[in-house]
């Protein structure tokens, strides 16, 4: 590892920005994170009102949930790269952290698929399960929550 710090061999990046620049960057990131969080909350409330209406909007809700997941990943990116300043580290350091986390892509897809297929099999062969748990289409109240996109742990 090529590091120039004399403080500790574990410091693998240089502090090249000035005080002013740093303050501006932190401020910008804080505002960005807050704005994304507010958008997410607004979307959460939109989902709530969509659930209450009669019309079947499962697909729309699914899309909106996808948007929330993308926003969350954006937030994670900013926290890791600016607050944890991984973005300032040397390239090899970044790679040793990020490459193993790629496993999550497979991990998420595989296990969500697994859960979904278990549900389909049970609905097909276990009619008692289907009858007791399948939500009735009674409009006004809670529309059931159908397959939300699930993303997690991916940085």
């Amino acid at each position, binding site marked *: 590892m090529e590091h120039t710090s004399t403080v500790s061999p574990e410091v693998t990046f240089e502090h090249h920005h000035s005080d002013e620049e740093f303050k501006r960057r932190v401020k910008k990131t804080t505002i960005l994170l807050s704005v994304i969080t507010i958008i997410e909350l607004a979307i959460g409330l939109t989902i709530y009102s969509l659930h209450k209406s009669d019309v079947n909007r499962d697909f729309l809700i699914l899309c909106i949930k996808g948007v929330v997941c993308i926003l969350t990943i954006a937030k994670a990116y900013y926290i890791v790269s600016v607050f944890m300043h991984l973005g300032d580290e040397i390239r090899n350091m970044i790679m040793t952290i990020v490459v193993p986390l790629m496993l999550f892509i497979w*991990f998420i897809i595989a296990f969500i698929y697994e859960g979904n297929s278990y549900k389909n099999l049970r609905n097909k062969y276990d009619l008692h399960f289907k009858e007791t748990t399948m939500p009735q289409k009674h409009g006004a109240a809670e529309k059931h929550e159908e397959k939300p996109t699930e993303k997690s742990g991916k940085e």
Partner: protein
Amino acid sequence: MMWYFLMSDAFTFGAFLISYGSIRFSQNFWPDPNVVFNAFPGAGHANLPLAFVSVMTFVLIISSVTMVLAVHAGHKGDKKGVIKWMAWTIVGGLAFLGCQAWEWHHLITGEHATLIDGKIEMIGQTMGGNPWGELVQGPELTAAINNTSHETLMELMHHQDASLTHEKLAAMSDPQMRGVLSAAELHIRENGPVAFGGYFYGITGFHGFHVFSGVIINIIMLIMTQKNVFQNKGHYLMIEKAGLYWHFVDLVWVFVFLCFYLI
């Protein structure tokens, strides 16, 4: 090295959240988070979906920012700055823990009318069950009211109209109360998926434990700063590492927030 520890911790949390996702996809019904998390301290029974959890999220984001400032002060060797910002970070962490304690307490002890085995019972959200199933309507609801015990009827009546005291209710007979309740608009739900409570308490509890240990680490760092340990060493690298851990806690909350409260 901190980074590799955090990476392994990310896998632990990832595994928890993915197993939650997997179970959730295997169910036909899953509770709507806006129905579950709609309380706010001091607001009584007002329906305020997402309000309290957004406060918690902002508390954690702000404490992350103060941690960045503490680390930055450390780079400049500014002892006073480190102490000031570390103290604010600790305050943020404790505030978050307090919020979580309130939320858990509310979920466990806040009892809701739930349809169990054909009759209505009052239950809170525990590992064994939760009141977040589907809404019960029509003839099923009427039958449930007819099967409900005297005590639960009294509780339901009191819930409907707080002016009904215990003495007034004791004077009413069961059929009378059933008549009133049938006419009223009751929000009775079925028992929700059992896994919901376990996953919620397990994952937010594990995250809360991380916040707790983060606060402890920050307090130790604060004391060490005050005792000039870092100044004598010539660098504030430990603050930097504690900071990484603290940001990681914030990062995990971003995903817990997404999985439990938003979607």
